[in-house]
């Protein structure tokens, strides 16, 4: 299911996925209902949502954070992620 590459970089080398602040999470599961890519799951934990499939997350998409009422979801910095993608692309180009 997971995307294999993003901008030519293996998806699993790009650390872009939601992080859940469980102090804020109200277990409303809007994130899971919303995300069409099945990034979230509650089965592993039994109760709270967990980021079960981080590599399914669409790089630069932050839509679940916008759907989160208690503002419990955060993402990495975009500029840092872009810099990392560029760096990996350059390394791949040299090879």
């Amino acid at each position: 299911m997971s995307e294999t590459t993003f901008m030519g970089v293996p998806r699993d080398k790009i650390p872009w996925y939601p992080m859940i602040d469980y102090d804020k999470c109200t277990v409303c599961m809007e994130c899971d209902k919303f995300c069409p890519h099945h990034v979230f799951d509650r089965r592993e934990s039994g109760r709270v949502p967990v980021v079960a499939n981080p590599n399914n997350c669409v790089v630069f998409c932050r839509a679940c954070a916008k759907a989160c009422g208690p503002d419990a979801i955060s993402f990495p910095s975009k500029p840092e992620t872009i810099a990392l993608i560029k760096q990996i692309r350059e390394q791949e180009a040299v090879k």
Partner: protein
Amino acid sequence: MKRAILSCNGLDKPEGSVAREVAIRGADATGSEIICPVLLNRAPARYKKVLSETSLIVVDGCSTRCATKLAARLEAKVERKVLVTDAVKASGQPLESTLSLGPKGLALAQSIVDELLRTLDAPAVAAEPVAEFETPTEYLVVTHDKFEFRIPVVDYVFNENDIWARVLDGVARVGISDYMQQKLTDINYFDAPRVDSTVEQFGELGSLESAKAVFEIVSPVSGAVTAVNQAVIDNPGLINEDPYGAGWLVEVKLAAWPQDQELLVDAPAYAEIVKRKAAEE
């Protein structure tokens, strides 16, 4: 067109109290009617006439966006949306934690109303869109099941977040691909970026909403927003009808086009991406 204000009641959160205050002050300042979300939900017929004659200013306290969802369910015409949690973040000032509004909450409510008054009747569009583009005529077509996704063969470049750019004279016109408009289904709101705001490549150029999703417009280019497509704000359905032509979203004066291009793909490469995405669904 007359306006009405639909805000969340948000009685259990400080942000909801701000939303309520924005509705009261905003109604006074703009001469708009207030719609009670609870009554609207319980007895929509009460507001049938108002909804048919007005466009809505929708005010949500938190990202659960109850008022937005209610407006979407009733297919109301929405002119503007306000999300208090975004305004709190933008102000850099956390709200008081009490449900009764303190000085910070009241000041925030007033600043939101002031911003509404300042921008409601000001056109979002810069004088004229700079670029003169002809509608594409030749497409690559990716088929998946019964769906067909069109991709213009020439002039358009794409990022992997399904946004296109078409460049002329240092200005990029930006929109979403046919694949993404079909995936979102009927788009009912374009939250446009402000003209003159600057954006980095892969930064946010506003968002689109449909009954199905909120979609962040990930900018394919870096630069300054010079125009916003007012026709699409008035009628977001244009994006579904003509995503590469009349449904364009914004124009951006390019700041670093040579570098931006390195991270964009042409039509054949984007077609491969669409094929892969469609197959994964």
